[in-house]
């Protein structure tokens, strides 16, 4: 992990105005607060969290589809969030994105072949003949017959459309692909196929992924490192197995314990469950989980937001001052 990160977020914050957009008294909502992490070549970095925790906003900020309120985004060491779009455009093919809703990710009026071909043509990735061949190659790479290039997006199922989106992202030979809940909208059986496809492609093409999801299983399956987000913050970050085996933050524990378990032997274990709802406001200056955490102490009212290493593992970080005792 000594090499340069492919994608890096430094202190990312994003606030939205929620009511009365042009009024002086507009209320603001912080979707992302002080998020920092780095994705290294060849790995899959997972971000997990419940709906509305800001994980998709992080994806859009990294893709420079939105401007961060503060903080910096780097792609292979180059700052990308504050450069003019014209300059960024040359860099864009190297970081691609797959969206959750495959239905709206493809222009309904174009043939699949054209959808994949056009970005390659614009970026001059070969002659017309070469690009044609590449389109067919990409389709078969994602497990679709090459003849399907003449069809329109609505003629495909959700899973097939997601394969097309992956082919489209691959067409520009990216170094990293941001996968924003790529399987959340799919049937469980199809989810597994897509996850396997993503894993195979990673091996074959030496890709780097940033995988965003709310399903723990999917994130665990693909990711080598995981960050857990809650209310716009990363609350815990660490190696996939370390995080799953020894969660250091009460929220991570609750998230893991909330997943249904088939194994009867595990059913009686001591579960952590949170009271209340996500939108429960913590008191000013307190830990974001304060209102819901069963382990809160006096000290939790003075939340610092610093990530500290969990005892015995320097890559495993948590914002919880209690650095989980177990």
């Amino acid at each position, binding site marked *: 992990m000594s090499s340069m990160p492919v994608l890096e977020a430094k202190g990312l914050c994003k606030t939205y105005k929620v009511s009365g957009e042009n009024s002086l008294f507009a209320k603001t909502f912080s979707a992302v607060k002080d998020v920092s992490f780095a994705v290294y070549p060849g790995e899959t970095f997972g971000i997990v969290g419940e709906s509305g925790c800001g994980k998709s906003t992080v994806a859009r900020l990294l*893709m420079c*589809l939105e401007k961060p309120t503060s903080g910096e985004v780097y792609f292979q060491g180059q700052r990308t969030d504050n450069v003019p779009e014209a300059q*960024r*455009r*040359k*860099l*864009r*093919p190297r*970081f*691609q*994105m797959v*969206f959750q*809703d495959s239905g*709206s*990710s*493809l*222009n*309904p*009026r174009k*043939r699949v072949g054209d959808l994949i071909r*056009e*970005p390659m043509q*614009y*970026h001059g990735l070969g002659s017309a003949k070469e690009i044609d061949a590449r389109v067919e190659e990409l389709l078969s790479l994602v497990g679709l017959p090459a003849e399907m290039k*003449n069809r*329109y997006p*609505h003629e495909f199922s959700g899973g097939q459309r997601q394969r097309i*989106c992956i082919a*489209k*992202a691959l067409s*520009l030979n990216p170094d990293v692909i941001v996968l924003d809940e790529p399987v959340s909208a799919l049937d469980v059986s199809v989810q597994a196929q897509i996850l396997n496809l993503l894993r195979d492609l990673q091996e074959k093409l030496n890709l780097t992924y940033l995988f965003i999801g709310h399903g723990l299983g999917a994130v665990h399956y693909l990711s080598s490192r995981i960050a857990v987000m809650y209310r716009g913050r990363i609350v815990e970050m660490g190696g996939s197995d370390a995080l799953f085996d020894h969660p250091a933050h009460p929220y991570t524990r609750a998230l893991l314990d909330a997943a249904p378990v088939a194994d009867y032997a595990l059913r009686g274990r001591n579960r952590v469950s949170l009271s209340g709802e996500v939108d429960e406001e913590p008191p000013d200056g307190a830990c974001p989980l304060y209102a819901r955490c069963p382990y809160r102490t006096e000290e939790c009212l003075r939340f610092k937001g610093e990530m500290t290493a969990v005892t015995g593992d320097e890559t495993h970080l948590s914002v919880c001052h209690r650095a989980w005792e177990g």
Partner: protein
Amino acid sequence: MSTRKSAKSRPIIKRFCHHKAAVVCLVILAVLIGMAALAPVIAPYEPTKPTGKFSQPPTPEHILGTDKIGRDMYSRILYAMRVSLLVGFLATLISTAVGVILGLVSGYFGGAVDKAIMSFTDMVMSFPYILLVLVAAAIFQPGMWSIVLILGFVDWPGVARLVRGNVLSLRETNFIKSDIAAGMPRRYILFSEILPNTVAPVLVFATSVFALSILDEAALSFLGMGVQKPTPSLGNILEGAESLSVLTDKPWLWVPAGTVIILLVVCINFVGDALRDSFDPRNEE
């Protein structure tokens, strides 16, 4: 690439044919437009030259009678349709082009540009329409070309709003986002992705603008501010109906022209309605 067209357009034609009334209207429209186009061939007389007695009721020589200075009504209506359709078509073309451009710019660039364009649009929309047209017609010299320009520059706000709304919703779709992520240029996003996805609603809206323009041309010409005599237009033929004695005693002077206007407007609107339904793929049975 012949399969490309048929694969997509066939269901549209099929869905269109489900509207029986619209198919009938389309046939009527085709006949009327055909008659207008062939006016120099099928018109029995010169439309601007007196060829019979004054205000003569229909006879075998003049099947729709003659007007008050003895010109053949049938020939005049044929030529009038040409003028009215041409005015309607050109006015629609101008207003649609203006509306599409302003709507695209307004929706895509947003911010101050959007505010300025939309305020201007609201201003044009809130102006008493017929008054604006009358004043404009009085300032510029009345005539066919000024009518085309006036109507063209008055009818665009509806199109502009429609296109802007469409662009706003398309801009938020993932396929535009993934174009931006793929580093595609603005011109590609605007003209290859957004514009083709707004063509269908614009086309449907344009049919109603077309019908409206024909009505407005008739109104203006009826008021003497439109197409000037001796050139016939459906509006200035109706001028005779300003007098009560013509209305009650000489129906051949206004019934045929009035009927043609109604037929044109009704048929165009029906076809527009059917087009809207057939462009919507959700109407697949």
